């Protein structure tokens, strides 16, 4: 029967209870540091990192980018005719909703 334990992965090295496990098969990308689960079955070990942390980081980063874009668009639109104000406002609202989604991950 398989056993699931909390594990960590740093620089591609999986550790269980602080001890490195040489033959662990990393199911996720395993590049960035992560905490996840190791599935142990006899002498085989598989590691799966918690990927929601990647999603949170990505959402935060994209939100920052969109904020900058909407700021630039607002200044450019204001210098012309201002006819895109509604669209830019909608972009700002959508960006706020997008940022909030990081707290609603399943």
């Amino acid at each position, binding site marked *: *029967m398989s*056993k699931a*334990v909390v594990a960590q992965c740093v620089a591609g090295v999986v550790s269980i209870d*602080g001890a490195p496990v*040489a033959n662990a098969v990393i199911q996720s990308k395993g590049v960035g540091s992560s905490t996840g689960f190791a599935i142990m079955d*006899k*002498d085989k070990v598989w590691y799966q990192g918690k990927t929601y942390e990647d999603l949170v980081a990505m959402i935060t980063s994209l939100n920052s980018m969109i904020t900058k874009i909407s700021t630039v668009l607002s200044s450019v639109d204001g210098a012309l005719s201002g006819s895109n104000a509604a669209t830019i406002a909608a972009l700002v609202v959508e960006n706020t909703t997008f940022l909030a989604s990081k707290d609603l991950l399943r």
Partner: protein
Amino acid sequence: MKIFCNHGYFKFLPTAIGEIAKFNSAYETDLVAKDDFYTFTFLQAAPDYSVLTKPYLGVPAIKTYADERPWEIMRQNKTVFNHLLGIVQPINAITLRSDYVKNQPSYGSSKNLYVPGSFTSEWKQITGYNCLFDFSNFNFYYTDIFYE
């Protein structure tokens, strides 16, 4: 009472009420219930996995291994429970001699519960055994002996 020593892990199966208490009293042991058998208190909470270099029952593991059977983990890590000392030891650390002599035509018997890892007169290292304990004469009758 039936006694099974499997790769240095002990299982006691009483055949009548009160046998565990009598055995504990006679030998000052601390047998406790686990699943459908009794074992030494030290072995009761044996984890179901070992990680290389981390202590498993007090001995640094030599293998990362997971199994719901603690005797399999002990086998992989080459450790046994020394009931005389009340600790788990690497099997290579056991240098005891047992008095096991297989009688003809029946079982080998002894007044002693063999320490797994101890050697027979032929210098075979015992890794496990099946045994019957007779309360009428306090003899251990070894029906099967397993070697390294």
